[in-house]
């Protein structure tokens, strides 16, 4: 007993054990995610008036943590096996949304469950597709031709269309880079990926007439964002203008927690969800915004890095998909608020107030933990053969 204890406490042994334990999981994800979640809590607290704690948000964070713990406790093969069923389930929910969902702001995105809980199935579509694609690519040989992508593309297409008609253009479009990234990581030839990259550019003019009027207006506003008239700022350019106003007026130092005028006066639209980053930029300034962006980036990169060291193709792809999940959201969400991308609604996982987004992000983190914890010996980099 004492010997065991001494062995446990023996520095070289303890260090080795720790490294082994850490090495077999994506441990670095935890502090990064915790940091991001903490920033999110502080932000939601400020948005809620900087008075009492934002209890709703804390409850959602707790729910996400429970979901993450559950997801982490299941082995990867369970998720692999469940992927098709989950996909069907989410599709059913998406259809259900269109049928029984209540219309909010001109879109049917939420299922209102008893007990005041609302569910946004499209948020769960992303992790489900990641699992499904990972399983699909892992079970089959490397895609060589465009036709080899038919099945994953179909899986994407069904969900994409259902989300698009809600309408939720932001979520739908965010599926595309996710798909592209997965196809690339699945080893599709450059030629195929090039086609996939060019296809949207070719299709864009065709899709233009299909867009809603307000969507077209937003894109036009975004294109000429530096020459907005006061009328445009008050109408179609409102979101973009106020997001940039919040960010720009924050400056290097920021206005101080709970003291940003755009936040406090409720002038930032959707500042709990899609436009939560400008609150951070306004109140924390550049010196807080950049560390936050860095932490978020590192979170995605850590998952990507982990994925490269697994032999199991499903684990590898799914883990990379989890990393892509965070990176895509980061780029699209923050890009929109900074006027780099046209205005579209996409929450920032782990930070936004939305419960579905929070729980889905928790699930993704849990999945990542489960996948990274596979007992297979990590490979050396030489185990990857060159194409």
């Amino acid at each position, binding site marked *: 007993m004492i010997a065991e204890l001494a062995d446990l406490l023996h520095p070289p042994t303890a260090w080795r054990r720790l490294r082994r334990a850490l090495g077999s999981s994506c441990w670095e994800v935890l502090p990064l995610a915790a940091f991001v979640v903490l920033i999110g809590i502080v932000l939601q607290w400020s948005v809620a008036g900087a008075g009492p704690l934002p209890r709703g948000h804390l409850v959602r964070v707790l729910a996400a943590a429970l979901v993450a713990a559950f997801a982490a406790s299941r082995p990867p093969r369970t998720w692999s096996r469940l992927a098709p069923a989950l996909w069907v389930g989410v599709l059913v929910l998406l259809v259900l949304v269109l049928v029984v969902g209540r219309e909010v702001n001109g879109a049917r995105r939420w299922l209102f469950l008893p007990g005041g809980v609302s569910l946004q199935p499209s948020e769960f579509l992303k992790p489900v597709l990641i699992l499904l694609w990972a399983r699909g690519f892992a079970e089959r040989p490397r895609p060589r031709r465009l036709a080899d992508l038919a099945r994953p593309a179909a899986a994407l297409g069904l969900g994409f269309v259902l989300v698009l008609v809600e309408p939720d253009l932001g979520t739908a479009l965010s599926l595309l880079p996710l798909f592209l990234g997965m196809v690339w990581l699945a080893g599709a030839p450059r030629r195929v990926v090039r086609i996939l990259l060019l296809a949207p550019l070719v299709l864009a003019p065709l899709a233009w007439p299909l867009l809603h009027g307000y969507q077209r207006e937003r894109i036009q506003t975004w294109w000429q964002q530096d020459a907005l008239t006061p009328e445009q700022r008050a109408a179609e350019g409102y979101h973009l203008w106020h997001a940039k106003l919040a960010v720009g007026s924050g400056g290097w130092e920021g206005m101080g927690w709970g003291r940003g005028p755009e936040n406090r006066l409720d002038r930032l639209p959707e500042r709990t969800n899609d436009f939560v980053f400008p609150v951070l930029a306004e109140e924390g300034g550049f010196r807080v915004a950049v560390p936050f962006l860095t932490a978020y980036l590192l979170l995605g990169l850590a998952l990507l890095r982990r994925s490269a060291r697994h032999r199991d193709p499903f684990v590898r792809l799914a883990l990379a998909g989890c990393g892509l999940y965070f990176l895509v959201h980061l780029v699209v969400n*923050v890009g929109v608020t900074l006027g780099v991308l046209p205005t579209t609604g996409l929450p920032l996982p782990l930070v936004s107030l939305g419960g579905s987004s929070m729980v889905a992000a928790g699930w993704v983190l849990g999945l990542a933990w489960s996948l990274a914890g596979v007992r297979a010996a990590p490979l050396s980099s030489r185990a990857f053969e060159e194409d």
Partner: protein
Amino acid sequence: MRERRVRQVALVAVGLWLVLVARLFQLQVVEHERWLEEARRTRIAGHAIPFRRGRILDRDGEVLAEDRLVHHLALHYRSFRRDHPAGQAFELLRLLGVDAGGIPGAFARGEELAPLWLGLRPVDLAALPTRERSDAVFYLARLAGGSVDGAAVRAWMASGTTRFGVAFPEAEPHFREALGRARKAWAELAAALGTEGEALAELVERERSRMDALVERRALQQAASRVLGRPVSEILREAAAPAGAAGAATLAALEERWRLGLPAEELAAALRGGGSTPPRAILAAVEQRRPEDVRGLRRAIAYDLHRSRQPVLLRDLGFAAVDLLVQRPGDFPGLVVQAVTERAHPSGVAPHLVGRVRVPTAEDLARWEAERREYRELARLLVRTAEQEARYRELKERVLSEALRPDEARGASGIELRYESVLRGRRGFVEILETGDDERRELAFLPAQDGRDVVLTLDASLTRAAEEAIARAWADVRADPDPEWGPEVLAALERPRCGFALLDLRDGSTPVLATTPGYRPEDFRRDFERLVSDPDRPLRQRALGGNPTAVQTPYPGSTFKPFVAAAALLRDPAAWERTYVCTGSWAPPDAPPGVRPLQCDSRWGHGRIGMAEALTRSCNAYFYQLAVDLGYEPFHELARRVGFGAATGIEVAPWRLDERGVPVPRDRYGLEGGANLLFPPERVAGDVATLMRTAIGQVGVQASPLALARAYGWLATGRLWTPRLVAVGHGASPPVPPLDPPPLPAAVREHLRSALHDVVASPIGTAHDRRWPLEPWRVAAKTGTAQVGGGLTHAWLAGWFPDDEPRYAFAVLCENAGVHGGQLAAVVLHHFLETSGEELLDGKP
């Protein structure tokens, strides 16, 4: 799948991240100033929403005081001189040095005067200074009307020698037409106002010349400021003390520069606004010697004043006039309708009781701000010393209860002050976000909450009847005078000074609390000087015995005798039968030398007289002897227990003048709190003369009519009612001292009733008068004549009616009338009962 691909994806991610950070840097660091500037254009504008102050109603719902929206006619002289033909002509002629006879002259004789400007040649204008010339061009263009503009007039000036009327032939018909139209519109407005168009022009002229005088004074002040290089406020402060060193130096410096040859005091007075030398004359002298000192001043000051001031021409316009002005603003350039909330007193009764409201002055606000600062400082302390704690409590109550706003009227006296917390509503507010993008959004909204009404037990129509009865009674008595009355009595009877309190013996309500003379609360501020200096003291609340500058109630005189009698009867019922001899005066046989006999009303004496007759005839000698036999203690005890010397607790706050002569609230509660007076026994002990004089109510006891009515209510019923003025609208209850009236045996009550009934009914009664009988209402009463140091006596009548089934107790006080109670106060009651007796007694006298 290979690690390289993962690395490539990571590289793309990092690249995109760099784009984001670069963009963030651009917005937050590079363009920060620009965005901050944008953010600063956002303002939050707060607007208060006024509340309606609660009304004060009488017991039948008649409005005694209410907030009313009134419309005033105001002058905006800038619009008038620019857009009204009379204003244009007047100002142009003034520039040319022609006196048109003011605005009325230009208005009435515009056509006659027109040749003066129609005949102008460019050379006539060339003589004017530049600015005045451009003003003249402006007015000429306006007068010519139509398509003529400044450029056309300037072209005419440059062209040569043509007369204005020739160069612009359309000018004359246009002016005639415009003036005719303006006259017609003014006649319409004047008709709606019940006056004449010329009278309106006179009003405009009055305000214009006032502003003119102000322009001259300010121009003089600013010229001084320009010369000395110091702010006007500083110079004015020094001019206030021309004899002081600084003042003398300043005035000497001005004199040295301007060489006016004026005494320093004159110049100081002209600067401050006063003195016999008008600033205009001084400025003219300065203009001759040092034109640069005053150049441009008048014009700039006038420009500012004309734009910013809107003096009121006529107050409280009727609907027709407001309608006309609002519907056709184009016909009345320069005339503005101002909507103002005023406290109105439609019934006009009991102004002293209802009280006034006032808008805080700048000094009030400054004082309140200072107190609030001090309060906050003290509130921040965790541990306070005893003095700090006391000060903190005092300030807390005042600061929190006052919360002054510059545009919010507060109760300043009477019910308005006492029930301030009930009457005052809560002001609402709206907060509006305003941005440079014309975005206006409501951030917060709190609706205003109107004040609650206060309902009095007062009956406005009865009080009005009482006020009228007082006036008629005084007039009647003066018209039919007693031959013995001297000229000073007749003079005193010219103007009624009366207090009349009526107490309902069923519930303690006070349907009548009448005071004459009254005043109009609306005009209080305007008439303040007159009101405080008027020898009749119209601010004195006589029904409650109050006095605006010193709380003092009168002696009750003989109306106090029944209480001495009651004290004797309570001690020994056989006292009713006891008789004394009245020889016209009396002194105790064992009186120490130096105590002179005190007089009775009857010079020859009443002879042997019993209590009943002594009360009926008001025999002083009887009560001297009764009091000496009885001693002071018993009737002091009784008087104290029926409320003499104690406040009636009527819920009205009084006010006083502060050191600057501004009326301010005195305290929160009872008006005559310290006014009703009763000597304590030790004051009278061993002093027989004081004892005797107290027994006839000429010293040692003072009472307001209401306090006396309360005590008579006890005589009538054996029950003591606390007068109740407020029926609905409860705030904190005023401190009423606990009174413990002794039981009044039926036999004693009956004795007193019969005696006091005889005062009115018996031919020997002091209140018996065939001309103005009180018997029909079965009044039981006692007259009184109270001596006043250095003045004519007060006349009293106090009692109740009907005598055998008492419903009301009353007291009438006629101040400084110089006649007996029965000669005047009884007439007041008669006249009152004549009009209102039936109503009071439900139709059965």
